[in-house]
């Protein structure tokens, strides 16, 4: 995890008076606290129109408050993903041609959730924030990568702040017991100011309705009812580790996540079992209300979580007035209940291997029976064939008894990969498979977090708008600080820095069988920061001296203006469409659209199986020879 800086060094330093001037709510904090903690923790940043304030995927620790002007917030990384082939061949083609084939399977997500109080429509992932808006709160609190790119729409003035200022404004989120116990330095806690209330009210008035509408489930609600919900919904903030609702409690409300990550878990005789993680835009608490039963799971805030709480009365009214919402909710609730029922304690297992290799985490594990496998690689080839030539399966890994556990997604019960995606593109549907949506920004967090190396970063060639490569006026390039956090530059070409994590890397394979812990095989996570300098060579480099840029056009006189005030607007940046390589994460999606995963379907020797390891391996025991038939997932 990135360590937060104690002081901000770039930008115009703000004294206490200036700080209170730009953020009046800080006036409610005592001068002593401000002097102790606020100095150096916030700076004023000025941006000219078109300047990039932060870029999606980059790491940071600050939030921004817009004092003047407006900014565009958008996903610059074009939508793309490795597609899963339909795999129905000629007959499928015929069916589709005559209109019998099914369309796109699965739930359609119309909005991309980001680290601000707006959602970006998937069709055009762009929104505008104005004076008084705050963005980057989650990055500031949890050091997640930036979820979107922010560019100044007009000349604007922003306050960039560290977490301590954010805490002063909106209140310190309750710290969980583990953090409290392990923290030696006691950080100050703040109750918050009216800023939070104003922010919530602004959200309620401006964004809550659109947020509700962005949830596919509520898409059919009428404006009148949405306004009714808006006025009655309660906005609740929770700290890390805070329990939002407890298993066994009376169900009295429905929750829609506004920001943060919620862990859904159940208490079993053997301990807690994490069912899933829910993000902004997702909801929970419907089962208890629908079926009038106690809560069947505990929902806990994993970090700073804001939820929209809709009371039981309003929820029931909604169900009565909108039967289609009730029907949709019922389907989702049934799917969640069915998923919860599948759990059996392990028995007859080689416990050391089972635990060391993390197999207890897996819900749907790809196994290769080494007594049957002829090492023909039909499974790998089929996987590549099914996913645009990019395999998500490497026939290498640890062994359990006579099985090879290859490198392929195992649909963990506690999917760590999902916990830090800044845009929520890695997620789980109601079934087991973990999918990566095409708005992945390629930050590589999920690949880094997967303990089993089962997520790879894959370069894509896409057309993208980048600034034209025209030489910059020397004087403009020499503009003194404070300058924008990042000069507008073409998006880094990461291809060179991050080779395709393909099936067979041209590097020696690890010897995972010898390793005591699960290996992380050849799937290099791209080091974005390392890639940037190389790519920036193509950018309009700031000229060191005029001599190196003889063809420089006449410098704009205003470009040498005062440092703290925006000069005359620079000439508009010419954008051109250019083929660039961007990174996207890929992982096994169990061939969602197919009845059987391609690797299993293509294995000629009945060696590849997708199984629930607990039941399958327990039933196998250590038997040899003709094995009794056991249930496989596929």
């Amino acid at each position, binding site marked *: 995890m990135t360590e937060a800086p104690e002081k901000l060094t770039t930008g115009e330093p703000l004294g206490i008076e200036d700080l209170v001037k730009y953020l009046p709510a800080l006036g409610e904090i005592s001068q002593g606290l401000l002097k102790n903690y606020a100095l150096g923790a916030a700076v004023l940043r000025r941006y000219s129109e078109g300047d990039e304030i932060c870029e999606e995927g980059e790491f940071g620790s600050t939030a921004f408050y817009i004092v003047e002007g407006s900014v565009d917030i958008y996903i610059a990384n074009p939508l793309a993903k490795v597609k899963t*082939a*339909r*795999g*129905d*061949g*000629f*007959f*499928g083609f015929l069916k589709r041609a005559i209109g019998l084939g099914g369309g796109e399977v699965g739930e359609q997500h119309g909005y991309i959730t980001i680290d601000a109080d707006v959602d970006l429509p998937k069709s055009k992932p762009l929104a505008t924030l104005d004076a008084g808006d705050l963005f980057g709160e989650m990055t500031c609190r949890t050091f997640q990568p930036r979820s979107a790119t922010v560019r100044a729409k007009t000349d604007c003035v922003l306050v960039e702040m560290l977490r301590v200022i954010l805490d002063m404004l909106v209140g310190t989120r309750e710290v969980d017991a583990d953090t409290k116990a392990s923290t030696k330095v006691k950080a100050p806690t703040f109750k918050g100011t009216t800023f939070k209330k104003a922010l919530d009210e602004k959200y309620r008035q401006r964004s809550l309705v659109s947020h509700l509408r962005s949830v596919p489930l509520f898409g059919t609600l009428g404006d009148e009812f949405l306004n009714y919900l808006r006025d009655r919904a309660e906005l609740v903030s929770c700290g890390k580790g805070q329990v939002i609702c407890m298993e066994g409690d009376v169900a009295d409300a429905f929750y829609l996540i506004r920001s943060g990550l919620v862990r859904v878990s159940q208490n079993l005789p053997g301990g807690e079992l994490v069912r899933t993680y829910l993000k902004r835009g997702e909801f929970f608490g419907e089962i208890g209300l629908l079926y009038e039963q106690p809560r069947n799971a505990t929902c806990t805030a994993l970090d700073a979580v804001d939820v929209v709480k809709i009371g039981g009365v309003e929820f029931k009214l909604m169900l009565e007035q909108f039967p289609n919402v009730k029907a949709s909710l019922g389907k989702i609730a049934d799917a969640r209940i069915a998923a919860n029922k599948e759990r059996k304690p392990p028995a007859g297992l080689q416990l050391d291997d089972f635990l060391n290799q993390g197999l207890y985490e897996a819900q749907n594990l790809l196994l290769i029976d*080494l*007594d*049957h*496998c*002829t*090492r*023909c*690689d*039909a499974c790998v*080839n*089929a996987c590549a*064939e*099914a996913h645009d030539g990019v395999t998500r399966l*490497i*026939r*290498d890994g640890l*062994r359990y008894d*006579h099985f090879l556990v290859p490198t392929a997604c195992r649909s963990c019960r506690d999917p760590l990969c999902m916990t830090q995606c800044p845009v929520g593109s890695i997620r789980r549907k109601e079934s087991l498979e973990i999918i990566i949506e095409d708005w992945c920004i390629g930050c590589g967090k999920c690949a880094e977090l997967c303990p089993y190396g089962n997520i790879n970063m894959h370069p894509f060639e896409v057309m993208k708008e980048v600034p034209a490569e025209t030489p910059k006026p020397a004087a403009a390039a020499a503009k003194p600080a404070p300058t924008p956090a990042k000069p507008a530059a073409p998006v880094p070409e990461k291809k060179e820095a991050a080779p395709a994590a393909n099936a*067979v*890397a*041209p*590097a*020696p*394979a690890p*010897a995972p*069988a*010898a390793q005591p812990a699960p290996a992380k095989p050849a799937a290099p996570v791209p080091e974005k920061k390392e890639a940037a300098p190389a790519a920036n060579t193509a950018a309009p480099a700031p000229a060191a001296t005029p001599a190196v840029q003889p063809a420089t056009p006449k410098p704009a006189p205003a470009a040498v203006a005062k440092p703290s005030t925006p000069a005359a607007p620079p000439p508009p940046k010419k954008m051109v469409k250019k083929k660039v390589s961007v990174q996207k994460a890929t992982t096994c999606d169990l061939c969602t659209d*197919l009845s*059987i995963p*391609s690797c299993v*379907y*293509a*294995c*000629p*020797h*009945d*060696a590849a199986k997708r199984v629930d390891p607990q039941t399958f391996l327990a039933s196998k025991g250590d038997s040899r020879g*003709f*094995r009794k*038939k056991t249930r496989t997932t596929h």
Partner: protein
Amino acid sequence: MVLNRSHIPWFIFTVLASLAVAGLYALRFHPEWLPFTMALPEILRDPWPHRNTIGGSRVGLLFGILAFLIFLFAAMLGARKKKPLWRVGRVEFWLKAHIWLTLLTIPLVGFHCGWHWGSPHTTWALLLYIVVMASGLFGLAMQQFMPGFMKERLPREVVFEQIPYIRKRNVEAAEKLFADAAPPAPAKAGEPAEKAGAKADPKAVPSTPEDLTSAAMIREFLEDNGLSYLRARRGNGHRLHEQRESDSAFRALRLSVTPKWLPRVEELQAACDERRRCDLQTRLQHWLHGWLLIHVPVSVLLIVVTLWHAIVAVRLFIVQP
């Protein structure tokens, strides 16, 4: 493919189908062999062909056609594997059908030709058929125990395609050791390490007399055994290829060097062990898949020859009776 319980239905089908083929043959050509009498359907009752060949009769022709259709189906397995995503049945099912239906061709072909070689032309076809069946059965036999054998003998199996990279990496490591073990004076031109471009690590250069002696021993060992073994295309015949010999040689080397060099010697031994494992994996892989080099091309040839045989037979028996 391992023959297990899932093959029982196919086994029963093949046995019953073979019995049916044998019964039909006996009914048509040797009714006296049967303990009962039974009339053949009209369509299968025809006079003996003018050359007195069984294959030319309707029953014989039926056997031949069925066998040929099975050949074609069996050949389609290759195409099926090339299109793994086509939902036309699991490849596993195709392989089972491939195995058992081709086994069924033994009685079909045998009764088609009346268990005679026939003319040179049919003799060639039969020889090809025997080669195809023998290679296929050999492959099937290999698949019964070789995967398990590989599992037991190769606890650290690697992706087969990466073996060349692993070998290259090991050679580079040994060359680096050779360069590091060079005396402080500039190495003579033309030494293997120089050729390979390996540069000595300044920290690793021996300094004390004992270290110098150890380094000299390591260089000698590498020159005599290590490098040649790791660079060799085939490890057979090298001293370090044998596990016991290798262990003994490295034990001797470890006793002769100072503690400073011990980790490097162990690294070298690990590289040699890995090379040995890679060689074994390559050899086993060749046994497991090598038969396909005969089976596939001869199968194609067999289909061509069978087609030619069909054309010739049609001309002989139908066009020019």
